[in-house]
């Protein structure tokens, strides 16, 4: 029972406490606030599990953007709380759900504990093949080279979610501005922060993307930081979301998967296989794809949080 494992137990207890809070909190807004705290604490858990890339992504997504999304929705849906709460299932149903969830969780936990001691791993294989891409960060190697198709499909999933969100707009608002128009006092504190922070945020975001080649980081946390800066500027009312029919925006939105596909097909026609990088140009190609992906991720995440078009292009 070293100090470290005592701390880990305390961390796990606090994380479970926050998770319990998000389930039992009476008001949805309080639960959303609890979820943001839970997301940040989870990032600490990932650091303890030696998965720093994932910790960055969890802090950026779990704590950050998911929190913004849920807080925004909780505020807008406050009026529907009372009626929806009335439909709470009865005692027996809740008891049954608790018992069954506990059983499934127990089976899941037991299977995790029963995993074989000589844990099978692909770390040596990833290390041995890292020379093909010339990148130091093993996770980026897996994401961008060994399992590149998963990353390509994941970017298409992100774009699909955006098409789905946009398709929820009323017909007359198609081609308009996503999200509400935020007005804030141009001399107020929010506007001040929106002028002060973005330059720092953009430098940090680009650094995280650039460092992703050899150290924890990469397109995803970096892109999320850039998206957060863009959202901050939009929320402070200094700029407005672009109209969804603007050609330039749409080109940025498909830049990531588009460049990925072009490089992949290049590999198919010229190189050895689809998504295979010629060893000499592997690193520059991967960096180029990462830059395009960062732009796409920043734009897509920002627009996903902004939501469906709510204002027509006329105004």
């Amino acid at each position, binding site marked *: 029972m070293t100090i470290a494992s005592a701390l880990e137990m305390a961390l796990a207890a606090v994380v479970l406490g926050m998770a319990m809070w998000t389930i039992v909190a009476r008001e949805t807004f309080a639960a959303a606030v609890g979820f943001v705290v839970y997301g940040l604490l989870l990032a600490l858990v990932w650091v303890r599990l030696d998965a720093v890339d994932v910790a960055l*992504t969890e802090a950026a997504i779990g704590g950050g953007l998911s929190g913004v999304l849920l807080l925004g929705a909780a505020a807008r849906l406050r009026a529907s709380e009372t009626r929806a709460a009335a439909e709470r299932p009865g005692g027996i149903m809740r008891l049954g759900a608790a018992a069954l969830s506990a059983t499934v969780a127990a089976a899941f936990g037991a299977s995790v504990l029963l995993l074989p001691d000589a844990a099978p791993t692909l770390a040596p294989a990833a290390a041995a093949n890292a020379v093909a891409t010339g990148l130091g960060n093993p996770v980026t190697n897996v994401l961008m080279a060994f399992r590149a198709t998963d990353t390509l499909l994941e970017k298409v999933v992100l774009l699909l979610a955006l098409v789905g969100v946009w398709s929820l707009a009323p017909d007359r608002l198609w081609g308009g501005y996503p999200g509400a128009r935020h007005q804030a006092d141009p001399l107020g504190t929010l506007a001040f922060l929106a002028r002060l922070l973005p330059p720092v945020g953009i430098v940090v975001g680009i650094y995280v993307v650039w460092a992703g080649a050899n150290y924890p980081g990469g397109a995803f946390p970096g892109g999320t930081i850039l998206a957060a800066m863009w959202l901050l500027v939009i929320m402070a009312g200094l700029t407005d979301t672009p109209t969804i029919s603007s050609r330039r925006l749409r080109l940025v939105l498909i830049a990531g998967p588009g460049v990925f596909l072009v490089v992949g097909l290049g590999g198919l026609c010229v190189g050895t296989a689809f998504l295979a990088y010629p060893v000499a140009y592997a690193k520059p190609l991967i960096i180029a794809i990462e830059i395009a992906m960062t732009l796409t991720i920043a734009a897509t995440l920002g627009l996903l949080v902004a939501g469906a078009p709510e204002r027509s292009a006329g105004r």
Partner: protein
Amino acid sequence: MSAATVFGLCGAALAGLGLYGLIVNPQPLRKIVAFNLLGSGVFIIFGIVARRGAAAGFGADPVPQALVITGMVVAFSATALAVALLLRLFQTAGSVTLDADSPANMGTDSVDA
């Protein structure tokens, strides 16, 4: 009690909490929060698998880490789509209950000819 065991049980407990919240809470937004809880619990188990697979100089097996990052992106886009759907439902119907008498059985109780 190694880190993997502590967080393994923590991940399983999170999954159980997420399942409970997803089934019981009537409000769709709380179901989305519970879904994120369930998802992060499962990702913690991927993290445990990665941590146990530490070898060749890496603190953790990079493959499950990459799977988790991809999974998180998919989970976030699911959350964004669900929240947008929910807000649009609230805008058009004024209520967000999932179990209102769904149209599927409207009128089936009418007197059968």
